[in-house]
């Protein structure tokens, strides 16, 4: 049983403070709400100019050791960037690229790390292909396959929710090899041989692709260390949860601003609708849910990777942030009345983002179930 009496502390470093500050202004300047809408219609997967700026700020190498060109910090620092980006509904390959680097760090061969990590730090785009059409949150449930054929691995099967794959310089793909999970690196050439189909996803600020592997083969040297793969997958899963929690907290904060703005300006019955407690009190509840989720998020960031405590904290952050954004963005639609039902109202953008954050890498109930098994 968990020691519920243990004093919990949140560590927040000077680096985190600086990054949070810079990322908050950056996100506000670069991703105003009209940008999110423009991106939905844009041809490019994301804005290359902004991406280069993010790379030159060093954000892609934050959690990469210095020997590979990164700054040697950790995911706790990445959280401080993901949160403000989420608040402004930024659509960038920041999270997927970070996760690809994490996969390489955990299971990449030294040649793969030497080759790819410095490139990632400089702005190479990484796509993560670890989800499959069955939609199971258990990442070890693999139907995509690799079979050895001489010096190459022949791949087959389909991966889903591969964001920004069309622009990616490399992808990390999970497959089963000899009945066990394996990770394979696909460079641009290999990706070119695969079939990429644009997916229609609920969060239109994201560019998501289906990656069909049939007929693709890669040199065996592109296999990551299979002995480290199970651990790497679970690390990437946990890191994804942490960063999704950060995006969800950011999104919750953003949508609360949207609600408050409307409640302060819209009048009905000659009164601002924010004066009605039927709207005011649930808006406060959304704020309380945000504060709780955010406290869990920064705690989880601080203890990330630290055994069972790290896992418990990460799952709690994911569960609570999922519920927080669900509630806030759902109420945002309702509180805008007829306008809330329109495509023009920003509430739907946040609701769509919310659903994405909730259901990727396990929803709240899934993580609570895992927590129960960890705790009791």
């Amino acid at each position: 049983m968990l020691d519920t009496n243990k004093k919990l502390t949140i560590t927040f470093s000077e680096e985190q403070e600086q990054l949070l500050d810079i990322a908050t202004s950056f996100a506000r300047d670069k991703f105003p709400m009209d940008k999110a809408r423009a991106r939905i219609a844009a041809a490019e997967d994301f804005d290359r100019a902004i991406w280069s700026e993010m790379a030159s700020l060093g954000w892609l190498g934050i959690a990469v050791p210095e020997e590979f060109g990164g700054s040697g910090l950790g995911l706790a620092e990445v959280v401080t960037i993901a949160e403000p980006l989420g608040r402004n509904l930024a659509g960038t390959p920041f999270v997927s690229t970070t996760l690809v680097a994490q996969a390489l760090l955990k299971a990449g061969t030294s040649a793969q790390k030497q080759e790819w990590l410095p490139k990632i730090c400089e702005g190479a785009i990484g796509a993560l292909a670890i989800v499959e059409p069955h939609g199971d949150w258990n990442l070890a449930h693999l139907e995509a396959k690799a079979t050895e054929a001489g010096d190459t691995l022949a791949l087959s099967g389909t991966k889903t929710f591969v964001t920004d794959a069309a622009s990616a310089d490399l992808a990390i793909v999970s497959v089963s090899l000899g009945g066990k999970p394996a990770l394979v690196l696909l460079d641009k050439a290999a990706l070119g041989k695969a079939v990429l189909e644009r997916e229609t996803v609920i969060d239109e600020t994201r560019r998501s692709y289906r990656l069909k592997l049939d007929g693709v083969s890669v040199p065996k040297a592109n296999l990551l260390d299979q002995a480290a793969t199970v651990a790497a997958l679970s690390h990437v899963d946990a890191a994804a949860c942490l960063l999704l929690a950060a995006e969800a907290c950011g999104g919750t904060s953003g949508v609360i601003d949207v609600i408050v703005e409307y409640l302060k300006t819209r009048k009905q019955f000659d009164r601002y609708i924010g004066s009605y407690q039927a709207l005011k009190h649930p808006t406060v509840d959304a704020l309380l849910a945000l504060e709780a989720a955010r406290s869990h998020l920064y705690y989880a960031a601080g203890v990330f990777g630290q055994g069972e405590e790290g896992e418990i904290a990460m799952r709690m952050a994911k569960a609570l942030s999922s519920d927080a954004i669900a509630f806030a963005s759902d109420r945002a639609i309702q509180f805008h009345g007829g306008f809330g039902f329109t495509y023009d109202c920003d509430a739907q953008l946040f609701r769509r983002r919310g659903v994405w954050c909730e259901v990727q890498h396990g929803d709240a109930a899934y993580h609570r179930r895992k927590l129960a098994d960890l705790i009791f």
Partner: protein
Amino acid sequence: MSLTTQELDEFRKGVRAWFEENKPADPGFLLPLSFMEVGTDEQFYFLRDWQRKVYEAGYLGMAWPKEYGGHGKPQALQDIVTREMIRQKVPFMTNTIGLNWAGPLILNMGSEEQKKAYIPGILSAEDIWCQGFSEPDHGSDLGNAQLKATRDGNEFVLNGSKIWTSLGRHAKYMILLARTKQNTNNKYEGLSFFLIPMRIPGIEVVPIRKLTGEYGFNQTFFTDARISESCLIGKEGEGWQVAMATLAFERGAVGGQAGGHAMMSREVAEVVALAQTAQRAGRPAIEDPTIRDRLVQFIMEERSMMLNSARSKIKALNADRPFSIPMSSKLVGSEYQRRMNQFALSLQGANAAYYVGDDLAYERGQWQRSYFNSFSATIGGGTSEIQHNIIGERVLGLPKS
């Protein structure tokens, strides 16, 4: 003065040992769960002796100034003591109003004389304080308080009634919000704030029975009760501002309290233990997936409060809405307690319908009693609905209701 981790750890060890050795044995009667539930004399004297003992050991008012009976030490030490008291579930500090809001208020804006006169007795529990804010017709609408304080030379004459006066029967002093001027432009202007003696002619305290069947709060009647003008704190006519400052201390939105805990809160670990012994279809309730899910939610909530408090100390993580966490802690904590107690009943099967006094009641009916008592915090000190209004208006900037 800043202390090293090692010094803090040393200190904690000493504190732990002291409370282990000195915490009172079970008195053989039910103890109240907070200052709002002190119903009998035996409960009161027991708790008062305990507070005095803690104070004399140097563990209360540690960060309050020495010249008024405090110990002039860093707040961090007091925080360690308070946490340890909660951890060991020792009885709470019964002079809650004095320690947590009347005292800080006096230290903050009282005259030198008032500080000298009142602070030492607050710490030693020699002088119990009560609070005269609510009236029968004006509770949430505190600014509409109508108890009259009519000036007569250098005295005021009090007429009217205050209600829900916790600790009223034992109190030597009261913080009182009264109306010194009628027909003002707005309801707030005519109010003044007093520190008054309770044991004077014209004040009568009548106990009121609570929903649990026990006693705890009172109605206080004032009939031509005379007090000196030196009882004023803050200026005449500026009582509303003083009342607001008091409420900020009371709700924990502002620090400066003497320390020690004020309430025997139930903890999720106790509910988990209950779920381990309670049965569902012949199996421990804790094996039921729906119950596990609820328990996990309560564990997360309990951690939320701890983590909110940790995060509230990191300025950069509160940049958007700096008062959000401190202003919501009372609401979050009290509603959590209420729901968790309610859930604890639901674990007890049909026997949840027993109450204190029946030998088949689970843990002597403690949960039923603490569930009822949990409403003291969702209503007292400003109801949860009022807290929602305050947070909506002051933190989010929403228009007034």
